[in-house]
Structures are given as C-alpha cells and as structure tokens.
C-alpha cells in the first residue's frame, strides 16, 4: 500500500472528482443517511488511492464501485447488528412495551410510489422505488443507468457474469416501471 505518484495522483484526482457526486447519491439512496454515505465514499476513495492507483486508469471505475458497494454492504450489516443488539437489551424492550408509538401503530396512509410521483416529485419517488429493489438489481440499475457503465464494466464492478448483469438490470427496470406507474414512462 503506497501513495500514488504525482502524475497518477492528478489523474486519480480528476477521476474521483468526476465520480464522487454520483457515488454519494448511490450510497445515499441505499443507506438513506448522509453521514454514512459520505463515510462509504471516503473509504472507497481511500482504498482506491492506496491499493489500486497503480492499476490502469480504465480499471479504476469498476474497481471504485466494487469497493463502494462492499463498503455500503458493511455499513448496512453493521447497522443491522446494532439494531438487533439494541432490540435484545431488556430496558430497550421495556421502553418499547411501555410506550407504544401511536404514529407507528397508525394504519399506513402513505401514498404509494405512483402517487408520490405526482405528490413529492419524481426524483423522490424514483429513489424510494430504487431503495425497495433487491440489492443486486439496484446495483445493476444504478451502475448501468446512472453511472453509464457498460455490461462488462458493470459485471466487473459487481463481481458477476455479463448475463447476470443483464438479468438484474432487466428485472430492475420492470420492477421500477411497476412501482412508478405506467404514466411515468
């Protein structure tokens, strides 16, 4: 693990500046938390610069997104474990039992994704629908559609075959269309 040389550093800086916004949005859609999303992007930048700067620049993009996805998954796993542990603590359980949340218990009257398209704005509705997709479908959709990676690059970033990428992407599009309503198309 060594620091990149000056020329490489300049090139890496350009690359990271180009992808950081999209990477943040991807992490934010999945994690739904600004700080966690920033942490994930920062870690991905750091790892790419320290471990893979010497690799050919055309490999950086899939590598970067692969690192980012792993980091997002780590953060999700950690959050899940923390929530499980908290739910096992007896005083936390007592608190929940003694003070039921009337808002949480109320019947869900939130608008569906199709209604959100009109009510909240298309971007919020799209992000909500993306957050509800299975992880691999969401990953394939965001890398192909938002980042513009081709099938091969997406496969390298996701660590799967080209065929799997096509399947995940196709299913993601179908699911999103279903969720967002036909009038969105």
């Amino acid at each position, binding site marked *: 693990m060594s620091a990149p040389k000056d020329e490489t550093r300049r090139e890496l800086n350009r690359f990271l500046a180009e992808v950081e916004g999209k990477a943040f949005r991807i992490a934010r859609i999945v994690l739904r938390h600004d700080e966690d999303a920033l942490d994930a992007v920062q870690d991905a930048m750091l790892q790419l610069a320290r471990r893979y700067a010497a690799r050919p620049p055309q490999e950086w993009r899939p590598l970067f997104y692969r690192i980012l996805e792993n980091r997002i998954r780590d953060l999700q796993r950690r959050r899940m474990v923390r929530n499980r542990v908290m739910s096992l603590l007896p005083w936390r359980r007592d608190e929940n039992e003694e003070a039921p949340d009337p808002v949480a218990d109320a019947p869900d009257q939130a608008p569906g994704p199709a209604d959100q398209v009109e009510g909240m704005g298309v*971007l919020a509705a*799209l992000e909500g629908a993306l957050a509800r997709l299975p992880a691999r479908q969401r990953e394939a959709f965001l890398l192909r559609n*938002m980042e513009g990676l081709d099938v091969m690059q997406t496969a390298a970033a996701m660590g799967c075959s080209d065929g799997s990428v096509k399947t995940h*992407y196709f299913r993601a599009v179908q699911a999103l269309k279903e969720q967002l309503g036909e009038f969105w198309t």
Partner: protein
Amino acid sequence: MNMNHETTEFERRAAELLRASAAGLDGATRARLAHARTAALQPAARTPGWLEFRYLAPVGAVAAATLATVLLLSPGKPVAPVNDGTGSALYDMDLLSDAEAFDIAQEPDLGFIEWAAAQGEGTGG
C-alpha cells in the same frame, strides 16, 4: 423475456434525473466530498521500519518467554497458613470430649487456675 431491448424513454428519464441529482448536490456536501478526495490522495503517514509487526513480533515473543522463565524460576514466598476456622472447631471438639477441660474453660477466674497449675509444677505434684 427480452433483455436485449433498446434504451426506453423510462430509462433515459431515470438516468437524467439521477445524474442531475448528483450534479446538483449542495455546497456543503460538495465541500466534504472534495475534502475526502484530498485526504485520500495524501501520502499515508509511514510507520517507522523498526515499528513494523515483523520486527516487533520476535521482540514480544522473547519478552514473554523471559517473563515466563522468571516467574517459573523465582523462589516462591512461604505461604502463610490460612485460618479457615477448622482449628477453632477442633479446639471446641476437644473441650466437649474432655469434661475436666470443659469445666476449666467455664471457670471465670482463669488467673487462679494458672496460679494453681504453677504451684503444682513448683511442688512437683
């Protein structure tokens, strides 16, 4: 299932929206991302060679072995007898089985008993 479809209007629109959202991040987030990028590109602080694990591990192993040897070879201190109360219990049993001893133990004026015993030893009887 046709997966070799051309990009649909839905996909184009989604891509536009998502890319626009990434391009339109607020200034604070942009600044933090730029800061993270700069930090990632900084040379990492190098650990001095002699502090690396491969050098420290043998030193640690030798220190642990020396400590273990010292502990094994050092003479142990004499262990003080532990008063666990069994001594006084045996004394009580002895008193109960010896009627005369029990009587003496009940005597309020133990000073007299000691004087009488000393007199007896002095007269040889």
